[in-house]
């Protein structure tokens, strides 16, 4: 750790001072939260006059809308800060947090199921606690148990979260046509609670917080290690109790505000960075700091909102994802990659299961044909052969072929980055490339570019290449699971920024979903015509790079010794990846998991050489995206479920399998 204490660290010696500072910050923010963003309806003076309760509109507004929102923000922040601290101690993992481990998303799904399908059989809090426990349990189970490596556990948790969030989105979309409101809700809003709802949840959250404080001593021991804690005569009781209290805190906060991310991750890490270890000090400060963070974000969200509508607070907090995760990975000693004992867990590190298909395309082509046929037949009404020729081809054809082209490009892009970074978990989405492209596209729209036009494409190219450059620099020392974790955090931040821009611009919420999770809704022949040259360029360029890629996946040095040009290869491959990602994303938005899975599936089928895996990866990507889109159209016509959500539901479990396979 650092040798000379910085100003903040010196504060750590005086936790009381720190608490006072945070407390006054909370007070100031609370004062601001009562009137900021009300467009003049509430003045600072009205807030100061509150104790006398004058009979004014401002007073009514404060009492019925601002005050509950303030209490909600405070409660959510404190609850999440505490829950994060307890979870990190119990799992001895600085990356553990309610949102990272799928607890928040599990709680949200349970709440949605309870409300939309089960007609509220359970009280909301019970549903969220059960759902949170299930989500967290699943993450820990799939991450290799509580004692698994911290980074792997976090990555498994993120995948589980993505999967569960996909399910929630689907459910919300299916159950309610007014999807836009619910999409915002699942992004974490503070203004959906009124006094009765709050008063039902607050006492339980307070109780849970008290329980955690009582367990503080036991948590101190637990932080030393399970073996040691047992040796010191600590029973498992307090740990279980504290864990349960953490679940109640998360569940309660989801009931109040939906999933609010990265508070539970950031707060305990900040305190640990300040050098605080004892839970009797850490826990109250975590609550205070969490409340400060959420309240600050909420004030910001209200201040930035327009026309009386505020931005989702959870999305503002989502901006924190990348900085927090990168900070944690850089600071924590136990998370640093081991010095090259196990060099290059590259794509080649996959088990050499070679069913070496001599002509893999003989299998891939009929699959492609089947996918096209299915895409033409199914959707909003099943069509027979005659109808397909008569009308189906004209209406369903373009988006079908766009899905194929985009899927193929994503498959190729994934294959290239995996070979370049020698990491089978690398992909356009796990590097944050797609979210960068969609952020750039949205920014271009903000500047007046037409959707799908050349200026937007240029913006997407610029955004993607900047991110690719940054990630490559960050990834230099990030083998294995660290790279995708950084990339996914980056994606979360970029997606939050995109969503904020979309909402701020008053774009349609459907549009927002389009840019963030990707859909082929409403694409036509002109879009296809714009995409095809890129497909040809990407395929041809990738094919030319194959001989050098084959060697580069072993090492750059070998390539140089054989007379190849590693730098040129990385530059060209990077350019191809950027083109593929920017072209697909500016056409259909960010589609997750296709670019991650296709190359891995291709390599499992034909081995590590790219001459065959290139075409196969393109074919698998094309078929996957085409099927996802077809499913999205066919599940519940006339609704058009975003292909990106379906791809996540297919992709996340496969990603978890992949992660599990790497353990051996």
């Amino acid at each position, binding site marked *: 750790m650092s040798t000379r204490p910085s100003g903040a660290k010196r504060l750590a010696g005086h936790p009381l001072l720190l608490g006072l500072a945070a407390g006054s910050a909370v007070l100031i923010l609370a004062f601001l939260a009562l009137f900021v963003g009300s467009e003049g309806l509430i003045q600072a003076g009205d807030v100061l006059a509150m104790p006398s309760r004058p009979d004014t509109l401002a007073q009514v507004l404060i009492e019925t809308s601002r005050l509950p929102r303030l209490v909600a923000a405070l409660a959510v922040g404190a609850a999440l800060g505490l829950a994060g601290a307890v979870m990190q101690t119990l799992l001895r993992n600085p990356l553990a947090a309610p949102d990272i481990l799928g607890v928040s998303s599990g709680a949200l799904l349970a709440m949605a199921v309870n409300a939309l399908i089960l007609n509220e059989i359970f009280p909301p809090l019970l549903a969220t606690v059960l759902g949170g426990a299930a989500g967290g349990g699943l993450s820990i189970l799939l991450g290799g148990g509580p004692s698994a490596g911290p980074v792997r556990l976090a990555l498994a948790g993120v995948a589980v979260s993505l999967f569960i969030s996909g399910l929630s989105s689907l459910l919300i979309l299916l159950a309610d046509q007014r999807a836009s409101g619910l999409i915002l809700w699942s992004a974490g809003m503070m203004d959906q609670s009124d006094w009765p709802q709050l008063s039902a949840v607050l006492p339980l959250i307070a109780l849970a917080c008290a329980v955690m404080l009582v367990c503080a001593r036991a948590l101190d021991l637990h932080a030393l290690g399970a073996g040691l804690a047992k040796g010191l005569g600590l029973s498992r009781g307090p740990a279980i109790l504290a864990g349960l209290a953490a679940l109640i805190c998360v569940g309660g906060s989801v009931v109040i505000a939906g999933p609010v991310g990265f508070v539970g991750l950031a707060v305990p890490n900040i305190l640990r960075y300040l050098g605080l270890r004892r839970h009797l000090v850490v826990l109250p400060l975590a609550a205070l700091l969490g409340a400060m963070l959420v309240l600050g974000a909420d004030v910001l969200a209200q201040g930035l909102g327009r026309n009386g509508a505020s931005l989702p607070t959870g999305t503002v907090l989502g901006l924190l994802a990348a900085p927090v995760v990168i900070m944690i990975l850089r600071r924590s000693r136990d998370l640093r990659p081991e010095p090259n004992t196990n060099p290059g867990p590259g794509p080649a590190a996959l088990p050499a299961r070679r069913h070496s298909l001599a002509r893999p395309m003989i299998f891939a082509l009929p699959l492609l044909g089947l996918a096209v046929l299915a895409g033409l037949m199914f959707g909003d009404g099943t069509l027979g052969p005659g109808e397909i020729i008569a009308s189906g081809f004209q209406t369903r054809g373009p988006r079908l072929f766009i899905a194929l082209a985009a899927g193929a490009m994503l498959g190729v892009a994934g294959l290239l980055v995996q070979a370049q970074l020698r990491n089978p978990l690398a992909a356009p989405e796990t590097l944050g490339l797609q979210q960068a492209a969609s952020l750039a596209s949205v920014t271009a729209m903000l500047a007046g570019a037409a959707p799908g036009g050349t200026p937007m494409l240029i913006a997407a190219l610029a955004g993607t290449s900047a991110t690719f450059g940054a990630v490559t620099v960050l990834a230099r020392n990030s083998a294995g699971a660290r790279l995708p974790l950084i990339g996914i955090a980056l994606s979360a931040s970029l997606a939050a920024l995109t969503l904020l821009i979309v909402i701020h611009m008053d774009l349609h919420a459907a549009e927002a979903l389009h840019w963030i999770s990707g859909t082929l809704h409403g694409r036509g022949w002109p879009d296809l015509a714009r995409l095809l040259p890129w497909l040809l360029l990407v395929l041809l360029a990738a094919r030319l790079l194959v001989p*050098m890629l084959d060697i580069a996946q*072993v090492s750059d040095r070998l390539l140089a*010794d054989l*007379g190849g040009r590693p730098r040129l290869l990385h530059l060209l491959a990077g350019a191809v990846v950027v083109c593929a990602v920017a072209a697909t994303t500016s056409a259909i938005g960010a589609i997750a998991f296709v670019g991650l899975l296709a190359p891995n599936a291709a390599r499992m089928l034909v081995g590590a*050489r790219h001459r065959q895996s290139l075409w196969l990866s393109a074919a698998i990507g094309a078929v996957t995206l085409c099927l996802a889109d077809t499913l999205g159209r066919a599940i519940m016509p006339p609704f058009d479920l975003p292909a990106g959500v379906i791809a996540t539901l297919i992709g996340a479990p496969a990603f978890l399998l992949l992660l599990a396979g790497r353990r051996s």
Partner: protein
Amino acid sequence: MNRPAPEQTGPDQPLIRCQGLNLRRGATHVLGPIDLGIAQGAITAICGPNGSGKTTLLNALTGVLAPHSGQVLFAGQPIGRLRGRALGRQIAVLRQHQDSVSGLSLRELVAFGRFPHRGLMQRQTAADRAAITAALEMCGLETLAGRDMAALSGGERQRAWLALALAQEPRVLILDEPTSYLDVRYQVEILSLLKGLNRDTGLTILAVLHDLDQVLQLADAVVLLRKGQLFAAGPAPRVMTTEILREVYDLPLSVETTAPGRASVRIDWLGALA
């Protein structure tokens, strides 16, 4: 002292020649000045204590490091003029540390050696396949060709990397400590393979070797470095003498001739440890 002159390396015109070679890293002078010739068809060993500049010299000879002054000539041409794959067709390098590979079969790895000979879109030709098979045979790996690299033993793996270098059909094979990290049996295996290759195909071999006994068994010529300077170079019997080695390594060692043409290095351990 009788130090052999560097020019007398062999009867033929040298394949690689250094003229007034100097190398710097930043402002520090790390190697040189060096004048020497590497004879075609011979086995030349580069020796010297740690940090004497052996690997740096290798990197200069393969064109990886550009000289600060002086030049390296390969077959009469400045090595800098051989670029990209043309270099890969002339010089094959076996590095000191090999990348760990899995998911590739041995044959697939060896096939990478044909990269310098192939066009970007070109499939394997009959000549490629013949070269790969020949390289596998020379290294005794035909039966293992289908195995995954991860499933090979240390010696087999080292031979696989050697086969990759041979599949390049180079004019000169450069090896950086080919026997380090191998147990004695594999060391002998690799060295006898190299000796056989040189005898049967006339391949020029240039190897950094640490073990002085191995140098005595293997090398026709020796280049001896100390502190970034060329200390001695020439035919092995003239360089590998008690007097020269004692001065370079600063150890009580002696070269003992056991039979005509057979010598070994004896270190007076008791004297060294005293």
